[in-house]
Each structure stands twice: as C-alpha cells, then as structure tokens.
C-alpha cells in the first residue's frame, strides 16, 4: 500500500519533489561527512581524556615507546632468517666487504620503511579510523599467518 501511495504523490508533484530530493541528496552526504568524524573525534577525546587524565604530559612519551618497542620486536623477529637477511649474508660472504653490503642493505631497508610508513599515513588521512583499524588488523593477521606458514614449510 505505502509504496503505491508515495509513487502517486511523487508523480502528482513532480517539480517540488525532485527539488526536495535534490536538496536532500545534496545535503545528506555533507551532513554525514561532518557529523560522523565529529562524533568519532569526540569519542577519541573522551577515551584519551579518561585514560591519560592523570598522566597527561607523559602520555605521548609512553605511547611513543610502546609503539616503538612493539614495532621493533615484531619486525626484528619477523625479519630474522628472512630472504633479505639471507641475500645480504650471501653478498657479504661473496664480496668480503660486509660494511659496504650493510650500508647498501641498510639504506634500502630504511627507504622501504619510509615508503611503508608514508603509505600508512596517507591511507589514514583517506579512510575512517574504524575502516583503517579493520584493514590494518586483517593485514597483520595475514602476516602472522604467513609467518606460521613459513615455519610449517621449514
């Protein structure tokens, strides 16, 4: 019953209806875009306010070292015995100039890391925090699975 009724009302007032529809579609994404991040930011502020209320000046320092150490440990362990390490090992064995190989490999690793972090930041400016967390979570789960797979293949 309802769809028929609304369809007839649309056809009876075509000009007015398309106008209001246009106005609604034009406004709704804008409203969504402005209201949603605002909500998220409020949530974030509330969350950080409750967790770091009493240690406000140390909060940033703490999270820096927390992120630094968790990144360091996982990537270090993942990279031990990886193909890059094997290829640098082979190169230094073949050319007997370990420092030169290390310098070349080291700059390459820092460069790829810089690109990686830059891509991550670029993505975080484009995607909503929740989408990004889910994507990052899935990616890390896949990396974890591939490491388990490597061990099973050994």
């Amino acid at each position, binding site marked *: 019953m309802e769809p028929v009724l609304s369809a007839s009302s649309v056809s009876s007032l075509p000009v007015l209806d398309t106008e209001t529809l246009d106005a609604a579609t034009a406004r709704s994404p804008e409203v969504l875009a402005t209201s949603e991040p605002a909500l998220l930011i409020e949530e974030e502020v509330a969350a950080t306010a409750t967790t770091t209320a009493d240690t406000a000046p140390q909060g940033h320092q703490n999270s820096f070292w927390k992120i630094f150490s968790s990144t*360091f440990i996982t990537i270090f362990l993942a*990279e031990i015995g990886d193909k890059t390490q094997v290829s640098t090992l082979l190169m230094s064995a073949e050319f007997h100039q370990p420092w030169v*190989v290390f310098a070349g490999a080291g700059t390459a690793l820092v460069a*790829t890391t810089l690109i990686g972090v830059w891509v*991550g930041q670029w993505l975080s400016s484009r995607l909503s925090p929740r989408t990004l967390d889910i994507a990052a979570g899935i990616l890390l789960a896949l*990396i974890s699975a591939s490491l388990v797979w490597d061990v099973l293949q*050994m």
Partner: protein
Amino acid sequence: MDWQLLGLAFVTVFISELGDKSQLAAIAISGGSHSPKAVFWGASAALLLASFLGVMLGEGTAQILPAHVVKIVAAIGFAIMSVRLLLPSTAD
C-alpha cells in the same frame, strides 16, 4: 668504497623488500597508530639490526636465534596487534 657493491646491495634489498611483509607491517602499524615516527624508528632500527646481524654473523645467526622459534614469536606478536586493532578498543 666499492660503489658498485653498495648499489648492488641497495637495489637487491630494495626490490626484495618492496611489498614484503615488513613493509606491509609498517603500513599496517603506522596506519593504525597515532605515532608514525615511532613506527618508522622502531621498524628501521629492527631492520638495521637484523641485517647487521645477517652481515656480521652470517650463518651464525641461525644458531643464536633458531629461525622457527623466532618466527613463531613474531607471528604471535603480529596476531596480538591484529586482535587489538580488530576488537573495538577501549585501551590506547
């Protein structure tokens, strides 16, 4: 300085690392965190130390740090990070 060897080492490692798991991890961790600098320094230090050990110790690395134990610990670490990102977090 042997520039040719330096270039060879750079190009080999750069190409093999592009899109490899440590770079993907850097993308994921920096995207999900608020401190890209911490991720950059942490990841760079880890990779430099890993390649330093590879170059200096050579085959010895495998004896000091048995590869499958190390990889399983890394897998657990990534899994924990993954779970923390996927569960709607109140911590952090």
